[in-house]
C-alpha cells in the first residue's frame, strides 16, 4: 500500500505493522524457548545449554617447542605418561597353585556391566560384539583370558590405548599440557579382564575385611548418599556430646 501511495499515513501504518510483525516473531521465539526449557529432560538440558551459550571453540595444544603434531603428541605423552623404570624382568611365569579358574559366569557378569556405546580402543571392537560372541560360545573368552589370570600376566598388547586429548574449559591459556586432559580408550578385551580382576579383588577384600566398613567409593551398593548420611550421623553424635565439629575434605 505504501509503495502504491507513499503518504505519511501509510508510512505510519507500515511502521506499526512492521513493529507488530517483529514483536510477534520475538514473542513466539520467547514462548517456544520457555516451552522448551519447561519440558527439558536431563538429556535435552545439554542441548539447551548449547543453544544458550553456543559451541565452545575447538582448541589445539599450542605448546612451546612442539611445531608439528608428532612433537605435540610426544610432549603430551611425556607430560601425562612420564617414563617409569621398567619392571623387573621375569624369566618364567609361574602358575598360581590355589588359582580358581575363570568361569563363563564371571565373564557374563563383567559384560553385563559394560555399555554397548562405550568407545572401543585400538582394535575398534565394541562390547556388543563380545556379548554376542559370549552368547554364541560361552567357553571362548574364558579360555582366552584364563591363562593370563592363572599366571598373573597382563600382556603389553592390552596396555596399548588410544588417547583422546580434550581441552579443560575456562583456562586462561592453552599453551601448556596441563590445560588438557587425556581420555584413554583401552581395548574392550582388556577392560573385560580388568572387570573380572576387580570383582575378584572386591570379593576377597570383603571376605578378609580389608576394606573400612564405611568405605563408600567403588563398592557396589554404596553411594554418595551413604557417605553423606555417615557424615551427618557423626556430626550429630558429636553435637549431642556438646563437642564442636569441623570437617576436612580432601581431594586425593
Amino acid at each position: 500500500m505504501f509503495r502504491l501511495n507513499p503518504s505519511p499515513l501509510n508510512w505510519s501504518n507500515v511502521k506499526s505493522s512492521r513493529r507488530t510483525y517483529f514483536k510477534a516473531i520475538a514473542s513466539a521465539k520467547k514462548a517456544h524457548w520457555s516451552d522448551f526449557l519447561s519440558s527439558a529432560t536431563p538429556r535435552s538440558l545439554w542441548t539447551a545449554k548449547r543453544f544458550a551459550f553456543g559451541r565452545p571453540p575447538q582448541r589445539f595444544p599450542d605448546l612451546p617447542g612442539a611445531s608439528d603434531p608428532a612433537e605435540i603428541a610426544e610432549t603430551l605423552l611425556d607430560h601425562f605418561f612420564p617414563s617409569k623404570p621398567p619392571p623387573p624382568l621375569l624369566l618364567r611365569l609361574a602358575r598360581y597353585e590355589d588359582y580358581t579358574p575363570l568361569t563363563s559366569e564371571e565373564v557374563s557378569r563383567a559384560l553385563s556391566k559394560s555399555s554397548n556405546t562405550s568407545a572401543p580402543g585400538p582394535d575398534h571392537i565394541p562390547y556388543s560384539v563380545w556379548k554376542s560372541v559370549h552368547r554364541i560360545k560361552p567357553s571362548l573368552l574364558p579360555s582366552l583370558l584364563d591363562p593370563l589370570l592363572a599366571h598373573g600376566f597382563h600382556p603389553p598388547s592390552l596396555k596399548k590405548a588410544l588417547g583422546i586429548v580434550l581441552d579443560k574449559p575456562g583456562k586462561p591459556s592453552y599453551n601448556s599440557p596441563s590445560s588438557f586432559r587425556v581420555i584413554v580408550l583401552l581395548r574392550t578385551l582388556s577392560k573385560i579382564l580388568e572387570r573380572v580382576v576387580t570383582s575378584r579383588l572386591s570379593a576377597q577384600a570383603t571376605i578378609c575385611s580389608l576394606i573400612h566398613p564405611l568405605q563408600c567409593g567403588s563398592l557396589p551398593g554404596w553411594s554418595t548418599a551413604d557417605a553423606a548420611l555417615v557424615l551427618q550421623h557423626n556430626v550429630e553424635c558429636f553435637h549431642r556430646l556438646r563437642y564442636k565439629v569441623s570437617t576436612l575434605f580432601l581431594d586425593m
Partner: protein
Amino acid sequence: MENFFTRYTDSSAVFLSFPIVQHNCLGSWDVFLSLFHSFTTLPHPPLLVAIQDPPSRRSVLPTFPGFISFVPPPPGRPRVAIYVSRTLNQHLSCSTVFHGTSDMLSVDVFSPEGLFGSPHRSLRVTSLYLLRINSPPYRSVLPERLFSFLSYPHLVLGDFNLHHLLADPCRSLSEREFTISRRYFEAAFEPLYHLLNTPVVYTRFPFDTVSRPSVLDLAFANTAPSSFVSSWDTPLPSIGSDHVPCVITLNPPAIMLPPPTPHWALLDLEAVGKALDTFTILHCPARPTPNSMSRWFDISSTRLTSLLTSHAPSKRPCPRSKPW
C-alpha cells in the same frame, strides 16, 4: 556431498585432488553460504577454505556441514578463518598456528608418511587479510612476518590489498602503491616464495562502475610451484562479494589412508556362530616366559578378532556412499 575418495585397494587409498578455496566474504552470511553451496560446481569439493573477513556473531563463526572452522583467538573480531573439511581432518592431522593477530591464521596439515610423494611431512596454509593502516608499512601485518624460510611447503593465501605489476601487468601503479607492494613482494621473493596467480586474471570487481577490476587476492608458495601446486584458477561464479573465489589445486598428496573400520552393527551373527563352532583357542605354553605368553595371547586374540572382522562389512565414508 560427492564421495571423492578412490576405492580402497590393498587397504590404502589416495586423495584424487587437494583443492583449496580462498575468498573474501565481506563479513556477509549470504556470501558465506553462497560460497559453500557453490562448491557443488567444483569437480572435487575443497579440503581447506581460507576465508577473509568471515561473518561472525560474538566471535563465533557460522558452521557448514562437513567442515570444522578455526579462527584466531580473542580478543578482537576474527578477520580470517580457515575451514577444514572433516574428511581431511579424519585422515590427516590438522593443527592451527596462531600469529598473535586476528588478521592471520595458519593450519598445518601433517602426515607422518610424507605428503605429495616427498619427505615433507607438513603443509602449512596461511590465511591472511592485510588491512590498510595509516602508518608504515601501511598494511596491518609486517611483510617479514608473512614469509619465512621453512623446510616444508607453505602456501600464503589472502586478500593482500596490494597492487603489483607481477599480478596485474596492465595496471598503471601510483608511486605510493608501488612502494607499498614492492616491500611485500621483495619479502616474499627473498625466502624463494613464488606468486601463483595467473597475471591479468582479476579477483576483485568493484561494485561501482568507475573503479577498474584488480588483483588483490594473491597466493604465494615457498617451493617451486610445480612440485606440489597443480593450478590456480577462479572457476567459481561471483557470489555476492566484490571478490571472486580463487581455487588453488594441489597435487594429490599421495598419502596412505587408514583402512575402513568394520561396521559392527551389521555383523553377520549367523556366519560368526558357524565359524566359532570350529574355532578353538591355541594351547597356552606349558612353562611360559613373558615373551612367549605375550606372543600366544597376541596370536590367539588376533585370530579371533580377524574372524570377527571378516564377517562385518566395512563402514562407508558416509551412509549414502556406494559399498566398497
